[in-house]
């Protein structure tokens, strides 16, 4: 009894979901589904439901609610054809037994005088039976067949729908008949209300099932689109790069550059929210670093704390930072360059650092003075500050400070 039949179905780690089971069910699979979920014998649950139903009717409501809200186990939809055939066999014997049991119970209740008067009772029975037919017909397991035009030809389906409608209409007419004899006043109004109610009862299962099917389909479509996008991306980027790496296997530097560029690309695609590099400082400096990496075959580690929108002065700082990175890549000889950006409420500070050979600030050649000028000069023109620290053999660090717009006024 302690053997959960299909407990492991949903896999390890995932929370198990409650499903109704289509296999070996008696009515809608609620009891068997619950039993599987809880890992106990379905008979116990069934007895509990019957007791609840007979004693207080609560069981009926719970059962109906579970039937409505708990979806059928997904395997059923996959093994559609087989499932329906099985159901066909099961239906006849069990349905007769169930119907007999239900009838017996109902008559018992009626006889001991606890039931409702006959004029209301029979219409309720008829409407209830009709609604049950329609709901079962519109159940998930049937939906695939049911949506296709061919499926409606299936005799049992047509029979069920028709029987359901006939029962409901009959019940409503009966209700009108009995009521009509008693009250002639307001008959028209009553008729309209009752007719509307009838239409709602007939249409409701179809409408709700349709809505549910649509949302399920939408989820599936989104999933497929994501898959397609992933496949396209992997193909365009990763596979292409791997092919290039194989062709350039003799050129270590090129291989490293390719691998690094691909890594950066994939990382950005996987982990970073899409940012517009034209508008935020973090995205912009990462884009610049990526560009320098690509052109000079070095690794640039960028760490950014905070972020802010890009404006004209920060744009100048960005260009200066780029110059500093290019300098480090070209002249320092270091394989790794560290870039650190700190965005504070008052100012933005960028550090570009390498552990390369460094240089003596006083004896720099003219062209490098020029490049340095484009860093220092550019910063100063825009109201910022650039500090270069370097010594032969001790690496270089460029520090760029720029006040943020509106903070210095």
């Amino acid at each position, binding site marked *: 009894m302690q053997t959960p039949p299909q407990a492991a179905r949903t896999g390890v780690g995932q929370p198990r979901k409650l499903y109704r089971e289509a296999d070996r069910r008696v009515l809608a699979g609620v009891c068997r589904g619950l039993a599987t979920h809880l890992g106990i014998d379905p008979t116990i649950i069934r007895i509990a439901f019957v007791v609840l139903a007979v004693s207080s009717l609560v069981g009926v409501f719970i059962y109906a609610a579970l039937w409505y809200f708990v979806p059928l186990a997904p395997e059923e939809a996959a093994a559609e054809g087989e499932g329906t055939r099985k159901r066909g066999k099961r239906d006849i014997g069990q349905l007769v037994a169930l119907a007999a049991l239900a009838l017996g119970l109902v008559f018992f209740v009626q006889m001991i005088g606890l039931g409702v008067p006959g004029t209301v009772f029979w219409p309720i029975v008829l409407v209830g039976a009709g609604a049950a037919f329609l709901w079962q017909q519109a159940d998930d397991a049937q939906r695939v067949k049911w949506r296709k035009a061919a499926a409606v030809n299936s005799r049992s389906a047509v029979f069920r729908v028709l029987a359901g409608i006939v029962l409901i209409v009959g019940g409503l007419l009966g209700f009108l008949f009995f009521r009509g004899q008693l009250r002639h006043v307001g008959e028209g109004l009553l008729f309209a209300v009752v007719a509307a109610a009838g239409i709602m009862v007939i249409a409701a299962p179809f409408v709700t099932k349709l809505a549910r099917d649509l949302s399920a389909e939408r989820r599936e479509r989104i999933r497929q689109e994501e898959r397609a996008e992933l496949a396209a991306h992997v193909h365009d980027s990763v596979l292409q790069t791997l092919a290039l790496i194989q062709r350039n296997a003799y050129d270590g530097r090129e291989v490293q550059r390719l691998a690094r560029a691909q890594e950066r690309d994939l*990382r950005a695609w*996987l*982990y970073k*929210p899409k940012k517009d590099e034209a508008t935020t400082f973090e995205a912009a400096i990462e884009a610049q670093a990526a560009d320098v990496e690509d052109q000079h075959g070095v*690794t640039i*580690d960028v*760490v*950014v*704390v*905070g972020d802010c929108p890009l404006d004209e002065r920060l744009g100048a700082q960005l260009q200066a930072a780029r110059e500093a990175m290019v300098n480090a890549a070209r002249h320092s000889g270091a394989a*790794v360059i*560290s870039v*650190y950006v*700190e965005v504070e409420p008052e100012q933005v500070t960028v*550090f570009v*650092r390498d*552990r390369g050979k460094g240089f003596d600030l006083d004896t720099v050649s003219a062209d490098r003075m020029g490049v340095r000028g484009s860093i220092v000069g550019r910063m100063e023109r825009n109201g910022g500050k650039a500090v270069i620290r370097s010594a032969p053999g001790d690496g270089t*660090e460029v520090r760029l400070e720029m006040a943020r717009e509106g903070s210095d006024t």
Partner: protein
Amino acid sequence: MTEDTRPRVVIVDDHRMWRSGVRAELGDTVDIVGEAGDVDEACVVIEAREPDVVLLDVHMPGGGGREVLTRVLPNRPDIKFLALSVSDAAEDVIAVIRAGARGYVTKSISGTELTAAIRRVSDGDAVFSPRLAGFVLDAFSSTDVPAIDPELDRLSPREREVMRLIARGYAYKEVAKELFISVKTVETHVSAVLRKLQLSNRHELSRWAADRRLV
């Protein structure tokens, strides 16, 4: 370097190629006493070999490095864990640190740096990569929120300075030189920050990490 002083290391990673790569790169600078390819195996190997340091991959099937930490650390609080990851997703980094790892480095780290990091962790100190230092500065930056526990929820100015230098790519030795303090003091500051990172209840820590990873 004598046999006795080499840290005993277990490598946990689900990629065999990565494990053998690390093994080759570390060479005989450390004593590699075991390898494991998944969470269950890792727990068994660590229990059996009792290493000084575990090199722990953050992403593994069956719960990842975090699961290993939560299973092993309660029984063996003396074993040090150094997390390695290719992903820089803040959520993962913060999660594994808060589960008890003594440090975090990216997999692009060089062999010599990795050896240094292992030694540092085995000596009981913390290892922060520039990126982790950046995370810390970011997570502890918003000072406008009142701290619930000022002892844990704020960085001291000195700790902030140290973090900033590490984020700028400075090694501990360079940080010490820059701030005119000893390497030991730098290590003390970093360990203090690690403690705050592990124990602070700043909800920014978790919320911020989640925000950063809007995949």
